[in-house]
């Protein structure tokens, strides 16, 4: 089968890959690069569990073809720690008890990171609106909202 050559930066590392033309970014990350933090939950862009940042924009990696993002800079949950230190969102999710089963957590944190990157102190309303793109079945979202608020203050 014909493959497509792409070069992507993932968590500040360059990867030159030959991918299938129909390969999703989620598949590339999970199967080729062993970055399994992004999860496949719905496979159709409804839940946000596979959210990663593509050039700073939160995208559902199950709906993105890797061939489309040649040259892109991609950040996954695995790329959030800096110099062995947790990102404030990661810290806040732990401290506020925003994590239960954890399956939505990566996508939720990446979605929230994109928000904080463009708006350091979002209002609660803005947080609610933003994370309403992601489904969490466990928490009822309250502690997730509190965690994003808290991380914004850090």
């Amino acid at each position: 089968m014909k493959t497509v050559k792409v070069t992507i930066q993932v968590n500040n590392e360059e990867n030159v890959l030959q991918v299938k033309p129909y390969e999703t970014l989620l598949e590339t990350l999970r199967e080729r690069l062993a970055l399994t933090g992004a999860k496949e939950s719905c496979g159709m862009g409804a839940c946000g569990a596979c959210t990663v940042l593509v050039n700073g924009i939160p995208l559902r990696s199950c709906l993105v073809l890797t061939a489309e993002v040649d040259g892109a800079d991609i950040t996954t949950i695995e790329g959030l720690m800096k110099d062995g230190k947790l990102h404030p969102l990661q810290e806040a999710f732990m401290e506020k008890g925003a994590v239960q089963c954890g399956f939505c957590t990566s996508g939720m944190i990446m979605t929230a990171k994109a928000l904080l990157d463009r708006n350091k102190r979002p209002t609660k309303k803005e947080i609610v609106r933003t994370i309403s793109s992601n489904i969490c079945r466990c928490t009822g979202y309250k502690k997730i909202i509190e965690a994003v608020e808290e991380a914004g203050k850090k």
Partner: protein
Amino acid sequence: MNTDLNIVGKRVVRSDSLAKVTGEARYTADLRLPNMLVGKVLRSPYPHARIVRIDLTRALKVPGVKAAVSGFDAYGIKWGVFRYTQDHAMLPTDKVRYIGEDVAAVAAIDEETALEALSHIKVDYETLPAVFDPIESMKDGAPQIHDEHKNNINIHVHIDVGEVDKAMREAFIVREDTFKAAGEAYAMMEPYAVVASYKNGFLDLWMPNAGPHVRAKALSNLLKMPLNKVRVRHINSGGAFGGRSEVAPADLVASLLSIKAGRPVKLVLSREENATSSRQIHDIIATIKTGMKKDGTIVAKDYKVIYNGGAYSSTGPIATSIPFYVYEECYRFPNVRYNGYRVFTNKGIRGMYGCHGRAFLAGNEAQMDLMARELGIDPAEIRLKNGLTPGEVTATKSKITSCGLKETIETASERTDFKKQWAKRSRNKGIGMGCVAIMCGFPMGFRSGSSCYVKINDDGQVTIVTGLVDNGQGNESMVIQVASEVLGIPMGDINLVCADTEVTNLDPGSYSQAAAFVGANAVKVACENARKRIVAIAAEKLGVAETDIGLKDRMAYVVKEPDKKMPISWVVREAFFRGDPIVATGSFFPNIDFEREWVSRPWGQMAGTFSFGTSVAEVTIDPETGKVTIPRFTAAHDCGCPINPMAVEGQMEGSILQAGVATITEGNLWDKGHLLNPDLLEYKVPLACDMPEMDTIIVSSRDPAGPFGAKEGGLTVRMNAYSAVACAVANATGALFEELPLTPDRVLKIMETKKGVKK
């Protein structure tokens, strides 16, 4: 709260959360073993059909295919949770009974090859008439789904206490209503997945599960393998909510494929397969007749409840019973008759759910409010009047020990100004209350208890080993916290080995709400036994009596002279020197009447204790569209003692989503045997923007048998939140609901009926 406690009762960071926020936590689909194959399943396109022939030969010829199996490769054994429910072959050879049932499977080097191979499997079916509605299914002449069950009645639970007919005749008011509810979707974020690896006669398995031991036992039966050769390993679970309790067809499929191929096989279900072919939730039709005295005392209840069970028994006897029990554990019923029927239909298999029984429970509560209003009594008062109190015995002879029901009703009422709000209801605004009690554990034979091993390592760090399971609710962190409290060693110094059938002992699992009351209790006992050994050596070394020794911050110290102390690690090394290292075991077995049986003997002590809870929902209704919104939700839960209040709140908040908000949004939709909303676009899981302001109140009743007084953490909300919403809508509209969820069309209909306007 006991102020002597160092860490129990504190809002601690859960031990599992670091791995989860960094993306390092591994779930089944994340596993990658050398030479691993991809498994795919061919599913039945028919709701009911005889299997004439399954031909795998062409599939096996596809390059890259390493194994293909059907039920003819299995051992002809049928699984059932009970001896009398053994009807599920997992891979059928006689006939298929629902759309999506597993028929055959392949394992190949990659997904594309596996999918291609599926298209080469040839199955000849002879289609049969199918039935989807349980009422139709019970009629004479309906298609027979299992030969041995006449009229497709899978389970009939019959309870008859006192003299119901007489009490009804003598009651001041009697009311009978029928309530329906569509089954919800579990919609756990992790689609079901299994990795099976067969090597040297041993089968290792990873899958999200609520009880590895019962899972291993089922697979050892199905595969005719000795139990010790089937090892279910620990893995994170992306949510269960009751839907991961039982052995799944995918477990058998992946195992057979791995055995055949001699290589590990990973089988990951799609979101749609997870909805159609893992477990579904019962649709329920509940007819509820209630007799009351003039003062609001319930004198009799008469129930007929029909559960659409789908194609197989699953946990049928339990599912047919639980809604009744969580209600009778809450209220005093001097006379009660319950006829619960679980009926087979050609739909997916229905299992237990954390929110199981909403038609029954919300129906009971909403009907009670209407009757109370007729008598001039408000909902809080009627619940207090009929609610059970400590020391009372339920209708089916379970003794209630600790009981904070009254406190939950009172605090939830105060926080919401309930009485006033209820009285000043308007057509567009209402408030409602729901109560329930939850058994913490129930009879599961010798699996009802739990055991723990603890060893203190030479550096003073601790390893605890327990069969306990975490499906995301925080059970792992909870037992580490308990161990930390007893041993005076920080949580970070405690390693947990759990839910691995090779090394851990039996435990009820994350099932029957037993994790805190039973599992954590066993951990506490084991750690107390280890503690005694530490204290004995420390007392000897520090020259004081054992009763004078305290353990805290890795130190053994003299309570009255805290400066006199030694590190616990020194004590441990001394024990090694004496050739008697500090290891201990501990067990807990709850006080349950094991003569009790769901169908044949439905009475006796159900559980070691019960939790209690009250939810209050405030709703607004758009009179134009009938759309219900829930601006505020208050839940009070008697969990005995919150080991980690933050985790208990999290459970309560999640329950408000899954049971409360679900009341207006969630329900599976069907066209005969086709599930119309198997994905997360069509099935509306509430989002952050759909959530009410939530107020969670923890009530501590200090259970005498619970670890540090703990019972279970949050399930009452999961089984009373829908009642609160339904009662609030009834409060606003002045009329009872007929069917859940309370979608705008249904609410409009209620409002129009009440106005006497006909469409």
